[in-house]
């Protein structure tokens, strides 16, 4: 199971199906992202696709004499797109049209299109299920930021999530047993909607599968800690410190950066250095980039002497590769250079050590002391200081002697912005809303849950990677067949129990997943032979986007859990 390969296979099918000739690819905003996640422009051009166009941004002037082009249309089946496409078909600008929808399309919409096609230009109408963003082979995202609004799951976001999830399942040909977190109403809603869809389209989901795939739907509120921590593996670190947006990293803020490096693409698919280092920690990457540099320098030296015909031949043959390598080296050196300068400038190593300690150990007084010290440190960023207090407040919210008010006062003295101060309360509300909701089924006590997010792994030698996300443990329990049926029920009505070993697992996180969890799933995939786990989320968070998501999730909700703190923040 590999989501990147699945989308690529669809792209190949789409571009190979029609006769040879020059092609244009007509897309919408979402499908453009889907394609750009898996294919580079040159890769698309090799398939004779020379022009790319957006359906919502058609250039009216370009409607002359392009009928020698074949038009591949790739759209989400939304009413707007159907409308725009039917307009396009009434006045076709291209010779022939091959229409592909990325999800299930209604018969009525096909009828509308067929009736618009008066000149018989449409050759093909198909559904290819790639309505999601494939980030890594085992990681996908819906691309929905701020999907929880005022502690409810708005129906258009819910439908969008169901569509994406069903596309993932269809593209990998799996019909899973759906298990969800009972105490979360979002998980229940999503599970039920997806179950409805699978039953409604039972002919589509009828695969002769010999294993029992499981889809596990989780709620971000169960683990608000993971997105708050500083990260030290390459991909996660770049996202935390520089933000990855659809595989792109914006570097234009770095002083003195050259123009071609102001935005770089980090795609494991096209960049072997990135692919090899994506899950390695910062120290190892430093070593590897040094090796890459040395390799590059050796190459560059060999290019300097061009004395004989044989040298020239070798030069001409190797030059394109050399050029590619030099671009790659420049890119990674810039990115890693920037990462290490941020780390040094803001004492991130110190901050992270305390973060990890809070997350995985129990030593209230020494942690409190360290936080007090760091909050007064000048080099530490405001956001890091706030996150430390946040972690402390989350961990010790049921601890009688916690000093959250004192710490907030300390932050205020430091002159921290209101948004950040408020976000402390928001996170507490966010996590609290989950623990108390639906007390009837809440088998675990609040204290035990709190313990669970912070449960660490003893004997880890690296102090910066002590924390393991809650998801790791949950999935491990599922693999071993020990996941509690009361806490994680399934949607099948007959309540059938299958005792077979789980093989294919889909984990979906409502409210967004993180690259730390992605790494965790990667290690699980490597540890358990024969088990394939795919992780998905409504989006992929770093701490900054997570705090915005949290703010949106608890806005306009009366504060229940932080009444005693609210006077401190105003």
């Amino acid at each position: 199971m590999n989501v990147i390969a699945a989308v690529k296979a669809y792209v190949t099918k789409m571009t190979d199906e029609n006769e040879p000739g020059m092609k244009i690819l007509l897309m919408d905003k979402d499908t453009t992202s889907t394609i750009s996640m898996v294919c580079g422009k040159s890769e698309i051009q090799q398939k004779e696709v020379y022009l790319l166009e957006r359906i919502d941004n058609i250039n009216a002037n370009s409607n002359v004499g392009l009928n020698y082009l074949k038009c591949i249309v790739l759209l989400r089946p939304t009413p707007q797109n159907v409308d725009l496409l039917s307009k396009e078909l009434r006045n076709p600008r291209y010779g022939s049209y091959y229409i592909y929808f990325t999800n299930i399309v209604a018969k009525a919409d096909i009828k509308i299109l067929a009736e618009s096609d008066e000149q018989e230009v449409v050759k093909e109408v198909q559904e290819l299920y790639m309505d999601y963003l494939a980030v890594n082979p085992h990681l996908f995202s819906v691309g929905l930021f701020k999907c929880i609004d005022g502690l409810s799951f708005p129906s258009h976001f819910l439908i969008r999530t169901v569509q994406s999830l069903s596309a993932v399942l269809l593209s990998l040909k799996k019909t899973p047993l759906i298990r969800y977190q009972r105490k979360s109403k979002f998980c229940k809603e999503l599970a039920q909607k997806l179950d409805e869809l699978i039953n409604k389209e039972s002919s589509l989901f009828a695969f002769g599968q010999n294993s029992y795939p499981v889809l596990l739907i989780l709620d971000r509120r169960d683990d608000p800690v993971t997105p708050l921590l500083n990260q030290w593996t390459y991909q996660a670190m770049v996202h935390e410190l520089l933000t990855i947006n659809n595989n792109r990293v914006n570097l234009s803020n770095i002083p003195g950066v050259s123009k071609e490096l102001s935005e770089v693409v980090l795609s494991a698919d096209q960049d072997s250095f990135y692919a090899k280092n994506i899950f390695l920690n910062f120290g190892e990457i430093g070593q590897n980039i040094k090796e890459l540099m040395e390799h590059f320098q050796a190459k560059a030296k060999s290019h300097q002497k061009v004395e004989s015909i044989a040298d020239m031949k070798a030069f001409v043959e190797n030059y394109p590769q050399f050029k590619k390598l030099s671009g790659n080296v420049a890119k990674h050196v810039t990115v890693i250079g920037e990462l290490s300068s941020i780390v040094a400038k803001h004492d991130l190593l110190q901050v992270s050590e305390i973060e990890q300690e809070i997350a995985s150990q129990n030593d209230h007084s020494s942690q409190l002391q360290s936080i007090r010290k760091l909050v007064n440190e000048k080099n530490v960023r405001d956001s890091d200081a706030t996150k430390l207090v946040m972690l402390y407040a989350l961990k010790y919210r049921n601890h009688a002697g916690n000093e959250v008010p004192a710490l907030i006062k300390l932050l205020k003295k430091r002159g921290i912005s209101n948004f950040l101060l408020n976000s402390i309360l928001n996170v507490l509300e966010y996590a609290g809303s989950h623990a108390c909701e639906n007390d009837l089924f809440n088998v675990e006590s609040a204290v035990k849950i709190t313990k669970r997010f912070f449960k660490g792994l003893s004997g880890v030698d690296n102090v910066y990677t002590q924390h393991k996300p809650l998801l790791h443990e949950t999935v491990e329990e599922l693999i071993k067949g020990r996941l509690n049926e009361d806490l994680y029920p399934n949607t099948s009505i007959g309540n059938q129990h299958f005792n077979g070993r789980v093989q294919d697992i889909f984990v979906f996180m409502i409210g967004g997943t993180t690259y730390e969890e992605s790494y965790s799933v990667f290690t699980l995939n490597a540890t358990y032979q024969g088990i394939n786990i795919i992780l998905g989320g409504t989006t992929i968070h770093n701490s900054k986007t997570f705090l915005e998501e949290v703010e949106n999730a608890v806005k306009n909700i009366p504060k229940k859990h932080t009444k005693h703190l609210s006077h401190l923040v105003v």
Partner: protein
Amino acid sequence: MAQSGYKAVIKEGFLCPVCHQDLRSPNALLVHFQDLHSEEQDLLTSIKDLVSKAKKKILKSDEQELEVNKYIPKQQYFLDPANVSQEVGHFRDHTEYFKDVRRNRLDHRTTETNKLIIRLDKLIHLDGSARKQNEQELVQWLDGTTVTRCPSCASTFNITRRQHHCRLCGSIMCNSCSTFLPYEIAKSIVTSVYTLNKGDTTIKNDMDSIRICNHCMGLLETRRRVQISQIEKPLICQMYEQLHKVKCELEPLVDLYKKYSLIDV
């Protein structure tokens, strides 16, 4: 067909190729043919058989290829970009349904256009003398006595705005709602676009034209535009095709070149 048009009566419509009966609709024709001329069907079925056999064979070989692809060993390194082969996921084809809907809708239009073309073909071969009478024999003109307004622009007919008949469909309209189609163009419409430049010169009165209504004009123009766009190819496209052809020829040679280039000079 045009030449024989003077003497024999030409039938138009959905004619059975065996008994020349007009069946009025494509479906009726199909049913009639299947019911009455089933002995000719033998030929049809044998052709169908042949086609389906060939199809099966092709599909089977495709399947075998897919089978081969399935047994690619599991990837060694998880994120290695080199091994990303996976069978194509599930998909659903709506092309048949789409074409069904489109066919139902377009059948009517195509029939109408074809009727107009046949009539036009006859009209431009009429002699000048009894033209008006011949025109009315070919196409039944609508009775104008009850029509008081132009059906397309709704202005009343009077001494200055007179009734005119479309020579192709026989309907009534005013002067401004009709167009004159010159013989020259009419001729090029009737002749297949593919033989456009070879055209014959049998028609003498080049200055003449035929009055037709805007509706018929629209149908004829659409057909012509589609036909032209199908055969017209800009220079860049022709060059591209040439380039592609050359590329295909060259590709096998590249390997050969590489093999030779390895031999030290």
